């Protein structure tokens, strides 16, 4: 039978990437000089597993590379090698290389062969420097067996005489002489002779001991190595003697019995020499996709805690009970309203619990994303010459797997930004009376139906004056216009807005923040920044726990019902006519706490017949999208509820101002508004046809 082991590859990759995580965090935590034995052991075991698996599943280059790591780690755990910072650094680099190689193997892509070879060389260097014994390739077995067969083949093909005398305790290792005899006989023509002379008197007979000896004559064409292989497991538990009759008839002793010949049972799979690291060129993927393989990346499967599955099963059970209870109420004669009400309440509870339970299955702790940061912060702060302490809070906070995957890159950018532009050089900090080392805190928590992620630093904070100057330069803000502080800070989310005097290659050319904001928005979330010049900044991201559901406010315009995402609503208010300001030929504005926001007459934009076109008859829902605010004029506020987001684009296409649709309780469809899109649509509708205005377009 031939089994295609490729089917196990995915699991191998998943567990290998997990193993790399274990190795990396273990290495980062390792106390140089006073290493914790169990810690080294678990790092070793992770490397060992990867090596074993890669050999089994045919990834020889990876196996050979890992073997070097394993050897280093083995020596460390034995105490024969010192754990130095240099060694840890090399091992960390090796983990990076392995990650690349594994990703390449999994995706059928290329990796940077030169970079990997460089790390390979460093590993060898470490091995050579630390111990007197030169690097041992994983192949002594082959060479040993080669020499054994060489000696045997010297003699010509006379018949073998094999004396096999098991020690009394042979059975205790689960070995069976019959099996050995059977295997010998399978090698060629043979005769077996048993010697029962060793049997003790019946009274002293121990059924668990072996007293019988055998002499086997075997066809001379059989190689000595093949015979040795049969006895391999029992060498120490038996006396074995081989003799071969020479072609001329004289007896020639074979190689001495019980030689420690290390013949690998599975010889073909071993490589004879370390294979050249395949020189496939490929882009340097180190900066970009380090963690693509980690739990996240492009895997389409998920590991679920069995407890979550059990709870789901229980809830379905309760649902079945509720259903049968409601079914019993089906009596045309008499409707028991109380029972019906009770049943419906139960049904609502079951559905809600089921929904929460199912959503939880797709959720993973944010630690999967946060885990990369100790390493990143260590490497980056080192590179920048800054001292940074990383604090992580709430890493067990769970969120949807897809959201987790998509938040990964934005988080990296924000952390890099904080390190690059936020936290100052130690000297500057000292001069400002701050401790030399800066603190970067990553925190996550649940709030309402959302997850809140905060990245705070005690660095330089945002310089409002500089931001304002830049914005004026770009024509985003009028020369006389003054922005309140929070609006000022939001400027950094504007495209092309980087005030860093030197654009460092670390965090890019200011293309980052607006992309980050867009990514967050696509996930249905919001991002804002609070900062105090000189003291530090905190970036806060709020994301829905799941992509498919949002908390919505139902509103009515005319006879149409729309959903406004709660996350976009600032407030709702009754219109005060005295605050309305009409600009001739252009938009209507409403004065709200010192700022003027445009009024969006939704019925005009969407072509609906409103209940009233008079602003004071209705309400204004103040929304925020894309950093801008507006007031949507509606007829009535209806309830709030969680809605399942359905895409319009599946069967139709994207519609401006609408982010999707949902199905309400009565089976009808309601459109979900897109705050940013709506505000843009409104601006478009009121735009005078003046080309010079395009400069201001965001």
């Amino acid at each position, binding site marked *: *039978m*031939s*089994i295609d*082991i490729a*089917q*196990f*590859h995915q*699991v*191998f990759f*998943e*567990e290998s990437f997990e193993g790399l995580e274990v190795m990396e965090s273990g290495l980062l935590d390792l106390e140089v000089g006073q290493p914790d034995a169990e810690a080294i052991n*678990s790092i*070793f*075991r992770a490397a*060992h*597993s990867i*090596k*074993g*698996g890669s*050999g*089994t*599943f*045919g990834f020889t280059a990876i*196996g050979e590379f890992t073997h070097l790591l394993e050897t280093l780690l083995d020596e460390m755990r034995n105490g024969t090698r010192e754990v130095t910072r240099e060694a840890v650094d090399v091992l960390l680099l090796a983990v990076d290389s392995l990650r690349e190689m594994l990703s390449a193997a999994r995706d059928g892509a290329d990796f940077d062969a030169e970079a990997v070879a460089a790390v390979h060389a460093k590993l060898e260097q470490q091995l050579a420097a630390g111990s007197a014994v030169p690097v041992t390739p*994983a*192949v*002594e*077995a082959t060479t040993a067996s080669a020499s054994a067969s060489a000696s045997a083949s010297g003699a010509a093909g006379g018949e073998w005489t094999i004396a096999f005398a098991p020690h009394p305790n042979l*059975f*205790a*290792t*689960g*070995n*069976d002489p*019959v*099996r050995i005899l*059977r*295997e010998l006989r399978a090698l060629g023509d043979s005769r077996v002779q048993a010697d029962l002379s060793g049997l003790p008197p019946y009274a002293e007979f121990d059924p*668990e001991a072996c007293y019988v000896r055998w002499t086997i004559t075997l066809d001379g064409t059989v190689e000595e190595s093949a015979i040795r292989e049969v006895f*391999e*497991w029992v060498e*120490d*538990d038996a006396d074995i003697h081989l003799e071969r009759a020479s072609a001329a008839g004289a007896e020639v002793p074979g190689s001495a019995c019980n030689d*420690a010949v*290390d013949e*690998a*049972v*599975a010889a073909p*799979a071993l490589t004879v020499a370390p294979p050249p690291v395949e020189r496939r060129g490929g882009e340097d993927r180190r900066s970009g996709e380090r963690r693509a393989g980690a739990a996240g990346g492009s895997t389409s499967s998920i590991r679920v805690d069995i407890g979550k599955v059990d709870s789901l099963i229980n809830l379905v059970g309760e649902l079945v009970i509720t259903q049968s209870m409601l079914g019993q109420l089906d009596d045309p004669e008499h409707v028991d309203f109380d029972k019906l009400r009770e049943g419906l309440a139960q049904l609502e509870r079951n559905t809600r619990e089921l929904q929460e339970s199912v959503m939880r299955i797709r959720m993973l702790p944010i630690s999967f994303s946060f885990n990369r940061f100790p390493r990143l912060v260590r490497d980056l702060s080192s590179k920048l010459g800054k001292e940074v302490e990383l604090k992580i809070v709430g890493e067990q906070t769970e969120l949807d797997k897809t959201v987790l995957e998509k938040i990964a890159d934005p988080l990296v950018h924000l952390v890099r930004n904080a390190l690059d532009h936020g936290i100052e050089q130690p000297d500057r900090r000292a001069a400002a009376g701050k401790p030399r080392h800066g603190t970067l805190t990553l925190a996550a928590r649940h709030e309402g139906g959302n997850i809140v992620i905060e990245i705070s630093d005690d660095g330089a904070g945002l310089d409002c004056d500089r931001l304002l100057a830049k914005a004026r330069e770009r024509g985003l803000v009028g020369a006389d216009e003054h922005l309140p502080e929070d609006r000022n800070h939001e400027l950094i989310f504007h495209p092309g807005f980087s005030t860093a005097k030197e654009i460092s290659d670390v965090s890019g050319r200011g293309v980052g923040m607006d992309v980050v904001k867009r990514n967050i928005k696509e996930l249905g979330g919001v991002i804002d920044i609070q900062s105090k010049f000189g003291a530090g900044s905190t970036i806060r991201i709020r994301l829905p726990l799941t992509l498919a559901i949002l908390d919505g406010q139902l509103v009515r315009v005319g006879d149409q019902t729309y959903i406004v995402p709660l996350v976009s609503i600032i407030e709702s208010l009754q219109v005060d006519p005295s605050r309305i300001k009409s600009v001739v030929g252009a938009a209507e504005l409403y004065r709200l706490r010192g700022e003027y926001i445009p009024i969006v007459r939704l019925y005009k934009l969407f072509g609906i017949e409103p209940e009233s076109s008079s602003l004071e008859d209705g309400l204004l829902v103040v929304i925020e999208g894309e950093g801008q605010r507006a007031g949507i004029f509606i007829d009535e506020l209806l309830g709030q509820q969680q809605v399942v987001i359905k895409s319009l684009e599946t069967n139709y296409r994207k519609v401006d101002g609408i982010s999707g649709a949902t199905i309400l309780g009565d089976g009808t469809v309601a459109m979900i508004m897109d705050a940013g899109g709506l505000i843009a649509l409104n601006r478009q509708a009121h735009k005078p046809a003046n080309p010079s205005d395009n400069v201001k377009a965001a």
Partner: protein
Amino acid sequence: MANVLAVDDSASMRQMVSFTLKGAGYDVTEAVDGQDALDKARAGKVDVVLTDVNMPNMDGIELIRQLRGLPQYKFTPMLLLTTESGTDKKAEGKAAGATGWLVKPFNPDQLLATLAKVLG
């Protein structure tokens, strides 16, 4: 059909071994480490033990040592799955009572051949 206890902390290895053996008609019990294997071996008799060496919560060698102490497993074939090419693990394994070993990497056919040998 014979019942095999397959012990390895690596899920991919366990899967591969399990799939191979089941395909050949064996019954397979999987365990993720030495302690798990010991518990399962105590709960129900197995005919053969296939175990990795390096595992958390009791390694393969200690597992074999413990199993040999149980009367029902005195003579049961127990094989170590090892990547070590050095002799010390094998010697240590034998001293603990291992029947023999299978060196990783091995392919499914080699696994089946070895098992067939051992179970007769």
